[in-house]
């Protein structure tokens, strides 16, 4: 009787696991949402706990420091206003030239700030969850970045939060080009599981001339990431497959280990 009960339990759990594997992705996504929503109260609590030290620090800042901070921000704001005016002028000129050539007009992107609330508990994936969801206009495959550079793309969306797959994860491949005279193009692919600041830039031309420190930006190919988002800098390069093509290690501009807030590019 005891053994029979054991086998029944084994059979039941195996059945549940097999059932989960065989479910269509849409149903699995809904189940993930249902189970994940159990954690929503804790996510809210964690967010409040994270903001508490910042709020406390703000409350005890001296008036002199606050005035200094305001002055710095005002100066930075003025510089950014000038830069934005220049960018507007460039965008207008770009649109006029595109119109003259009959090219499609490039639509401007909007940025939405999101807080990183959770990280993948499994060591073999590199994903984070952010507190923007479908009700904020987020859809799958939107690029995610910080002020330093590209972070990844949205891979799953729920009403109140989304999952972002980071660069270096095997599920986040990015077409990128090196800022050298030849503009060599390659694919940013999975890196090692330990160092999340380095990724591999593969399928570069065999005769690509790559130097340490050259910038790497998104190429715009593939349609997911707009052209020109900074990815990182070349660390070193080596020929692969008897010189058929080259690979380079790229140090990412964005610090993926310390992500707290990210920007989602919403079209």
């Amino acid at each position, binding site marked *: 009787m005891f053994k029979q*009960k*054991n086998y029944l*339990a*084994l059979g*039941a*759990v*195996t059945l*549940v*696991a097999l*059932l*989960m*594997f065989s*479910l269509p992705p849409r149903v*699995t996504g809904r*189940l*993930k949402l249902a*189970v*994940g929503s*159990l*954690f929503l109260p*804790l*996510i809210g609590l*964690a967010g409040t706990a994270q903001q508490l030290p910042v709020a406390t620090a703000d409350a005890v800042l001296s008036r002199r420091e606050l005035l200094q901070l305001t002055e710095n921000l005002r100066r930075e704001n003025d510089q950014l206003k000038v830069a934005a005016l220049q960018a507007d002028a460039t965008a207008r000129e770009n649109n006029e030239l595109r119109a003259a050539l009959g090219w499609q007009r490039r639509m401007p992107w909007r940025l939405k700030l999101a807080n990183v*609330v*959770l*990280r*993948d*508990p*499994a*060591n*073999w*994936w*590199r*994903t984070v*969850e952010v507190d923007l969801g479908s009700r904020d206009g987020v859809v799958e495959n939107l690029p995610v970045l910080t002020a330093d550079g590209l972070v990844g793309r949205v*891979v799953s969306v729920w009403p109140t939060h989304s*999952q972002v*797959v980071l660069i*270096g*994860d*095997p*599920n986040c491949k990015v077409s990128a080009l090196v800022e050298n005279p030849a503009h060599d193009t390659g694919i940013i692919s*999975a*890196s*090692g*599981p*330990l*160092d999340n600041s380095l990724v591999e830039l593969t399928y570069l031309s065999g005769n690509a001339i790559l130097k340490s420190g050259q910038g790497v930006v998104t190429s715009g190919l593939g349609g997911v990431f707009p052209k020109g988002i900074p990815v990182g800098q070349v660390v070193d390069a080596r020929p692969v497959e008897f010189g058929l093509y080259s690979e380079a290690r790229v140090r990412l501009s964005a610090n993926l*280990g310390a992500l707290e807030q990210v920007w989602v590019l919403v079209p």
Partner: protein
Amino acid sequence: MNVLNTILIFAAAFLAVFGEAALPGLRHLLGAQVDLLPAIMVYAALNANLTVVAALAVFGGLAFDALSANPLGVTILPLFVVGFVIFSQREFILRKVSFAQMVLGTVASAVVPVLTVLLLLTGGKEPMLGWGSLWQWLVMTAGGAVATPVIFALFDWGHRAFGYQPRTETSFRPDREILRGRN
């Protein structure tokens, strides 16, 4: 075991999964996150019935996969296999001894990630693997080894804090009472 034990086990699993996703301290320090579910499974397999072990595997596995990029349900079987084996051999295990708890925690924490990755590879997924994964596996194993006796101690504390204390027998025996004075 009583209902309190079951509630504590599920609450611990829930908080452990959330803690692993919300607290990246160990990941920054050691390059890997320690998984506490195998350690909780060791406790459940030694102190609860098989239904609780099976339910913990399903609940813990689903919760872990819901916060991860894992396909939903992939962690259920590895957790249950570990729990089932320990449960079927628990009559031969000195469950109160910390060293035994540590050894079981080591084995469980080593086996669960390996089985999960094998299942992922079998399902055609491409998890991030390399030589660094060996270090991560060692960290997970060592972390599980350290965490298991701690989890046992925490559960004992939980029982003392929330459970009824056993009634102590009085040493007074009416048949041994010395009656003074004359009747």
